Every structure is written in structure tokens, then in C-alpha cells.
């Protein structure tokens, strides 16, 4: 069955907006519905749309497999490191040590913003990696 060019054009035009929406959900996670996990899955779905419509070789030039694996492992260790910083600068493991500002603005929640970004990157990279390996074709 011949593939038309509709999938090609629409996936390339639509997927940057999906990635932008995913980053908005991650960053405004403490002010409106959203958060690390929800935004991470939307980021992964933007990349998976490209993966379904273009094939795995063309997407690997933009998101190489080693970079995605490295992002995921780095996200996990960043979460652990934030916990240990909580021991040194605060009152226990994973305690809130950055200043809490006025509620209602973006940099106002202590370290919840940093944790949201770390979790968003980790979940996005993890689900992208699962889909990369499940879509691989036999040669």
C-alpha cells in the first residue's frame, strides 16, 4: 500500500506544537492542572508521532538513541541528588530547601519546579525509549 504525503507533512507541522504544550504543562505544574508526569507523557507523544510517520532512521538523526538514554539516566540521578542536597541544606531527605515566594507565580514553590522539570524529562525519555524498541522492525 503506497503511503501518501499527508502523514509526512502533518506530522512535521504538528509535532513542535505538541512538544511546546508538553513543556507548558511541566513548567506550570504547581499553578494549574498538570505536573511532571502529565507533561512528560505529552512530550513523549510528540516524539512518537514523528516516529510513527517518518520511520526510525529519520527520527534518529534528530533524537539519537544514546542521547535519549543518557537523558533518562541523568534525570534519575538528578532526582537522587536533589534529595541528598535536602540532607545537607535542609532538615531531612527530600525536604524543601529553596525559598517559598508568593503563591500564584511561577518561581514560587521552592524546589517543586525543579523536581517537575526533572521528572518531565525522565518520563518523556523513558516512554520514548520504550516506543523506539517496540517499533523496531526486523531486517
Amino acid at each position, binding site marked *: 500500500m503506497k503511503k501518501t504525503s499527508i502523514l509526512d507533512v502533518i506530522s512535521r507541522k504538528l509535532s513542535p506544537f505538541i512538544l511546546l504544550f508538553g513543556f507548558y504543562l511541566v513548567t506550570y505544574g504547581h499553578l494549574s492542572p498538570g505536573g511532571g508526569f502529565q507533561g512528560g507523557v505529552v512530550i513523549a507523544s510528540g516524539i512518537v508521532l514523528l516516529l510513527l510517520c517518518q520511520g526510525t532512521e529519520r527520527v534518529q538523526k534528530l533524537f539519537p538513541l544514546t542521547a535519549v538514554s543518557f537523558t533518562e539516566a541523568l534525570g534519575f540521578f538528578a532526582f537522587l541528588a536533589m534529595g541528598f542536597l535536602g540532607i545537607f541544606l535542609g532538615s531531612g531527605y527530600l525536604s524543601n530547601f529553596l525559598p517559598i515566594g508568593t*503563591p500564584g507565580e511561577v518561581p514560587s514553590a521552592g524546589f517543586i519546579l525543579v523536581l517537575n522539570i526533572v521528572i518531565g524529562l525522565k518520563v518523556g525519555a523513558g516512554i520514548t525509549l520504550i516506543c523506539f524498541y517496540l517499533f523496531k522492525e526486523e531486517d
Partner: protein
Amino acid sequence: MLRIYLILILFLLGVFGIILCRNLIKKVIALNIINSALIILFIYLGSLSGDEAPILLDQTGIIVDPVPQALMLTAIVVGICVTALALSLVYKLYKAYGTLDIQEIEKKARENA
């Protein structure tokens, strides 16, 4: 009360599907249905105590209980991980035996061993 029974029917559809279906992919889909039915049950039982979303920017009513929603976030992610590992196991079974029917796989495994 009727709503709790409907959610229970969804859960029982999943359990019937795991036991009575012969295709491996249908078993994995039924596992996912069980997961979703339990998540819906917890969030529904938590929403009986109010009528607004638990975000404090400008609210006009009583908010619902936010604790079950925070716990079900973890449950959703664990469901994704279980489905991914189950699908990769189905792929290994297909490559080893050449079919997706569980009774034929059992017959071939008994002949080989």
C-alpha cells in the same frame, strides 16, 4: 450506587477477558482494562465529598479530596510499565513459537520438553 456497579462490570469484563480469551494480545488488553477500572473506582469514591477541582486559584465551592488523585498518578505509571513488559514478553513468545494462540503454545511446549 448504580455507578459503582457499572465500574464493577468494567472490572469483571477485564477478569473474564484474561481467563477466557485465547489470543495473547487480548489478554494484555484485558489487563489494561482491569488497571483502568480500579483507577476510575478510586477517583470516583474520592469525588463524592465536594464539587470543584482541588486548585486554589479562584474557587467558588467546596473542593474534592485531592489525596486519591495523587495516589492514582503513581498507579497509572505502574500500569504503563506492566503493559510494556507484558508486550515485550509476548514478542519473545511469538519469536520462539511462531503463533499467538495460548493453547497451541502449550501443546508445542509439552512436545518439546
